[in-house]
C-alpha cells in the first residue's frame, strides 16, 4: 500500500471542539486515480491537508510507502512534502513575481538542485504540458488552464509518490476543467502517477477511477468507477 490511514481522528479546538475526522481508514495503492468527494464541511479538506502533511492529526496512524507520518518536525515535514508529494491547488498558488519556468523550478530549488539542471528539467516538463512557449511569462499573463498546467508541472517535477489535487478545477470553466481532468487521467494512465483529487463536483469525481465518499468526517461508500458512470450528468462532461 502506498497510502495507509488507520483510525485517523482530528479535532479542531477553536472554542467549540469540532470533531472533523472520526476514525478514517483508507488505503490507496500505487498508480491509483482516486477522488475524495464530499460536501463542504464533510472533512475532505482536512483529510487532504493531513494526506499532504500540511496539518497533523490527533490519533491514529498515517503511512506513506511504509513511513509513519506522525509528530514530524517542520523541517522533516517540509522534506517529506518536497520529496513525496506534489500539490495542485484550486487557486493554482503560483508565485506572482516569478515566471512560469521559475515557478516550476522552485520545488527543485528546495532540493538543492543546481540552477542550470533545474532550469533544463523545468523546461522539459513545461514542454511536456505544452507550455514551452510560455516559460518566461508571468502567471497573470496566462489563462486559468495554463496556470493550472504550470502548477501540474511544478507538482510533477520532483517525481513525487503522490499528486494531491485540491479542487483542481474549482477556478476553471467547464471546457478547461475537462482538459485538466483528462490531463491528470493521462498522467495516471501513461506514467502511473498516483493521483488523489479532492472535490465536491461529481463530474470531476467521475473522471477518476475510484470515488471515496466522505460525509461528516466518516468515510462512506467507496465506489469503483473504472466505467466512469458515476455522474448523473453523463460520462463525458463536467457540469458547471
Amino acid at each position, binding site marked *: 500500500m502506498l497510502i495507509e490511514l488507520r483510525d485517523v481522528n482530528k479535532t479542531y479546538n477553536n472554542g467549540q471542539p469540532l470533531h472533523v475526522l472520526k476514525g478514517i481508514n483508507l488505503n490507496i495503492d500505487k498508480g491509483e486515480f482516486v477522488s475524495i468527494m464530499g460536501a463542504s464541511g464533510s472533512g475532505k479538506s482536512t483529510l487532504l*491537508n493531513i494526506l*499532504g502533511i*500540511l*496539518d497533523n492529526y490527533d490519533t491514529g496512524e498515517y503511512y506513506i510507502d511504509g513511513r509513519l507520518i506522525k509528530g514530524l518536525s*517542520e*523541517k522533516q515535514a*517540509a*522534506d517529506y*512534502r*518536497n*520529496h513525496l508529494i506534489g*500539490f495542485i*491547488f484550486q487557486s493554482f*498558488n*503560483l*508565485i506572482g*513575481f*516569478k515566471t512560469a519556468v521559475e515557478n516550476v523550478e*522552485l*520545488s527543485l*530549488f*528546495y*532540493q538543492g538542485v543546481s*540552477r542550470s539542471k533545474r532550469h533544463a528539467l523545468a523546461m522539459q516538463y513545461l514542454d511536456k504540458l505544452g507550455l514551452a512557449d510560455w516559460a518566461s511569462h508571468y502567471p497573470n499573463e496566462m489563462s486559468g488552464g495554463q496556470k493550472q498546467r504550470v502548477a501540474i508541472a*511544478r507538482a510533477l517535477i*520532483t517525481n513525487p509518490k503522490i499528486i494531491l489535487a485540491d479542487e483542481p478545477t474549482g477556478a476553471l470553466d467547464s471546457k478547461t476543467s475537462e482538459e485538466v481532468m483528462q490531463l491528470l487521467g493521462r498522467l495516471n494512465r501513461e506514467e502511473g502517477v498516483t493521483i488523489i483529487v479532492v472535490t465536491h463536483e461529481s463530474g470531476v469525481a467521475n473522471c477518476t477511477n475510484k470515488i471515496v465518499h466522505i460525509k461528516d468526517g466518516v468515510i462512506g461508500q467507496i465506489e469503483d468507477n473504472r466505467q466512469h458512470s458515476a455522474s448523473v450528468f453523463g460520462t463525458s462532461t463536467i457540469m458547471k
Partner: protein
Amino acid sequence: MKDVFTEIWESIRRNKLRTSLTGFAVSWGIFMLIVLLGAGNGLRNAFSQGGDQFASNTMMYGGGWTSKAFDGLKEGRRIRIDEKDVQLTGSDAFAAHIDDVIATVSTDGTATYSNKSVSVSIEGNYPQRAKMEKIEILEGRYINDKDIAGKRKVVVVAQNTAEALLPDLTPARELLGKHIKIGNFSYLVVGISKSDRMRGNNMIAAPFSTIKTIYNKGEDIDDITFTFHGLNNEKANEDFENQLRATINLRHRAAPDDKRAIWIWNRFTQNLQMNKVGSILNVALWIIGLFTLLGGIVGVSNIMLITVKERTHEFGIRKAIGAKPWDITKLILTESISITAVFGYIGMFLGMLTCELLDKTIGQASVSIMDEKIAMLVNPTVGLDVAIEATIVLIIAGSLAGFFPARKAAKVRPIEALRAE
C-alpha cells in the same frame, strides 16, 4: 547564494519606495555615527596635539608659594628652587626612577636684528631639552655641550620669532649664522626651531650657563625637568610625586604635603587623563551614533514585518512545496541584512566624504585665544578600524532587524499561511 540574492532583488524591486525610505533612515544613522566619530577624533587629535610634542615620561617642577604654616614660618612664602634641588633630584634618593635632570632659567628681553626688534622670552637650556620636549630643529642645530661648557653666546630661535625679526616674507633660515642682539650682548643664531603653537611668546633658547652668567641668576633656577621610568600607572606616579614633593618641600622648610609650595607637572599622568577623557568621549559618541542608527533599524524591522505579512501566502506555497523553516528565515534575514548593509554603506561613504570635507574646511582653521593659535579639529576622519566596526554593527543591526520578522515567517504553519491572502 546567487539564488538568494535574486529572490531579495525581486522582493526589493516590488517595494522600491518603501525600501528606500527605510534605507534612508539606516544611511542617516551610519552617516551620523561616522561624522560624530570623525569629529570626535578631530577633537581628540586637537586636544592631544599639545601633549604629543613632549616625551610622555617627563616631569617638571618649579617653585610656588606655600599654603601652610610650617616649622615656624607663615604661609604665603615664595619658594625659589635652586641648583641644590637639581642635585637632590638627581641624587641616589630618586635614582630608581629618575634618569636625566636638567634645569631651566629664563628671562624676558628684547631681541633686535638690523632694524627690527621683538620682545622675547629667553630660556637658558641644556641640550637634553631638545629630546624631552621633542623640539624640532628646522635649520642648524640645538644647544650642545660645548656651548654649555664655553658659555657661548649662541641662540636657537623659533621659526615665528625669526620671521618677526627678518624683513617681511623672508624665510626664517636667513637668520641662521647671523648675529642678533638681546640686551647688551650679541648672540650667534645657530639653529631655527619649529614654532611652538602651544606657547604664544617668541621663544629663544640659549645655553643654560650663558644666561645664568649674563643675567647673574646665582643659584636660582626657574624649573627643573627630568625624565623618569618605571612609573606605569596613576597610583605609582602619585606616590612618586608625593615623595618628591616632601623631599623638596622639606629642604625649603615647607610642609611636606604642601601642594602649592612647589608645582609638579607630570606629562605622563596628564597624557593618561587626556586619553581617558578621549575614550569617554569616544564611547559617548558611539552611544549617540548607535541610538541614531537604532531608528533606522526599527524601520527596517518594521518593513520586514510588513513584508512578512504581505508574503505569508507566498511563504505558504513555498512551504507546501518543500521550503524548510530555515529557508524562509534565511530569505527574510538576508533581505534585512542586505538592505541594512547596502544603505549602511551608502551612509558610511557619505559620512567619510563629510569627514574629508570637515578636514579640508574646519580642520584647517584655528581659533586664536590669547595670542595662541588653537586648532579646532585636527584630522577629523575615521580610520579603517571604524569602517570595520561599523560593518559589524550593520550586520548585527540587520540580523536584529530581521530576526523577529523572520521568526514570525518561519513559525507560521503552512496550512494557515496558504489560507492567508
